[in-house]
């Protein structure tokens, strides 16, 4: 089967600083992938490359077998959505107005939202459970609510691949649990996800695949039980490895939270 997304010997430099060196991996349709690695290790850069926002310095990135650079921006925007770490919005736009922007790749300069646009928006709002927030002003929402709205904005694009940049960052324990439940739900709905994740304990049971990117370790991709081994993590994060088995899993935490 043709992979959904593949990086072929991709390197990326910011000026003279190499951020990504020879990334080589592919993600299949149906996978829910966690992207892990130390701070400054290139997770965000990798996501931005995958969304076509940055061009690789060398190598190429293929989406469904076609190079990203060969596709029009509009086409890429209909296939891939990136939910960034933070989203600053001026003026008092409401949640509904923001989610509607997700339809931009399907609209021309003229003409408003059509029936298919409205149903995509409704579905995104329903999946993320932000119906009650619809008419609230985005800037007045809490961190957890904003995170949901951002994901709804990404889902309104109806992408084949949803990229999430640290979706659980700055969320309290309860909101983290809700967000992981949402990712599981999206996975069940057939949305392909690649998410940068900091909290390694959130991975097993939720993500099918782990992608490791670190300046101290070669690129690795595989099932969680293969990547999340102390000997690999120690090198990748340059620290004594945490014993993940001693941390409560998502399901145990959720039980505890009840």
């Amino acid at each position: 089967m043709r992979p959904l997304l593949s990086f072929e010997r991709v390197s990326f430099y910011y000026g003279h600083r190499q951020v990504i060196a020879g990334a080589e991996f592919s993600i299949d349709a149906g996978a829910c992938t966690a992207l892990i690695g130390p701070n400054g290790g290139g997770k965000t850069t990798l996501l931005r490359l995958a969304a076509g926002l940055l061009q690789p310095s060398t190598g190429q990135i293929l989406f469904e077998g076609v190079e990203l650079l060969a596709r029009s921006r509009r086409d890429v925007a209909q296939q891939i959505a990136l939910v960034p770490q933070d989203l600053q919005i001026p003026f008092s736009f409401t949640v509904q107005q923001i989610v509607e922007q997700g339809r931009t790749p399907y609209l021309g300069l003229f003409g408003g939202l059509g029936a298919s646009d409205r149903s995509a928006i409704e579905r995104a709002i329903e999946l993320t459970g932000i119906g009650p927030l619809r008419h609230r002003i985005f800037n007045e929402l809490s961190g957890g609510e904003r995170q949901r709205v951002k994901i709804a904005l990404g889902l309104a694009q109806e992408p084949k691949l949803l990229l999430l940049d640290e979706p659980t960052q700055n969320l309290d324990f309860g909101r983290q649990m809700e967000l992981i439940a949402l990712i599981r739900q999206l996975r069940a709905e057939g949305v392909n996800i690649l998410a940068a994740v900091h909290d390694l304990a959130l991975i097993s049971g939720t993500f099918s695949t782990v992608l490791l990117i670190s300046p101290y370790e070669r690129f690795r991709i595989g099932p969680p039980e293969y990547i999340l081994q102390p000997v690999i993590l120690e090198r990748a994060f340059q620290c004594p490895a945490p014993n993940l088995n001693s941390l409560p899993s998502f399901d145990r935490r959720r039980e505890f939270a009840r």
Partner: protein
Amino acid sequence: MAEKPRLDVHPTSVRTGAVVAALVLALVCTIVVGITCGAVHVSLHSMILALLHSRALSPDDRVILMEIRLPRVLAAAMVGAALSAAGLLFQGLFRNPLADPYVIGSSGGAVLGATIAMVLLPQLSWLGFSAVALLAFAGSVATIAVVYSLARVGGTTQVVTLLLAGFAVSTMLSYSSYFVEVLDRDYGLGLRVLASWLHGSVGVPQWTQLGVMGLLLSGSLSGAAILSRRLNTLALGDEYAQQLGVHVERVRIGIILTGSLLAAVAVSLGGLIGFVGLIVPHLARLIAGPDHVRLLPITVLTGASFLVLTDTLARTLMAPAEVPVGILMAFIGGPFFLYLLRRTKRGYTA
């Protein structure tokens, strides 16, 4: 539970339509008020009679109405519409509620152009355009071209660079007008006219000038209408707009071109008038919320009515003497802006 039948027309667009209709009516009213008021009294009754029964006005009244007041009131409406629309475009582009029509420097070039025209070429006129109108327009457009090319590095323009380059170029140009003022041999007459221009005053344009400016205005307002949907997307930030498939640089050029053309039209007809372009978009946001598609018509109409009223006040308050409308605007607009700032504080955080 039975489903409600779906409305074909979205309720918000019905409401916007009603607001726009009300504003059109308000604009017509302010124009009528503007034509009726002035140093010389021409009664509304005789004007209506002239319209309905083609009973001729006295020749004096006719000249006052057709050659002085109507052109001036229409010019004021155009200046108000242009400044407000330009303010809306630049506030959207810079994602900053404090941006105004002159934010990337069109005022500097306009000042230099107007100074050259008043001091060196006071007699020149062309096709009904005074030298001031022409050179202020040209100066304003040329400045934007220079600022944009200075701010463009490696195929993209950073918004902050654009602001800073605009500030620097505009300041240099407006201060260099000092060296032109030194050349003044008219014993200060030109300089007094210049001072009034700098404080903003809508002149009495020729009909040809009004026609050309009207064409430019409607052209750039159509451009703004096309860009308004993109402004909503740009509110998410340049990078997010890019990932939604928008060609951000192209949209940015479009906004800068349209906004500068609007500012140039306004400067050419009315000198430097502050505050309109800053406060009218905010006023419109209070009515219609932040959606630029709805905001644009509301902003344009409100701005036009607002300036017609202010200019009428400027003409009549100390008649037959005239207060520059920009000064009046500072007294009305300043406090109003401060009020808005305190009232809507929470909406503009982050």
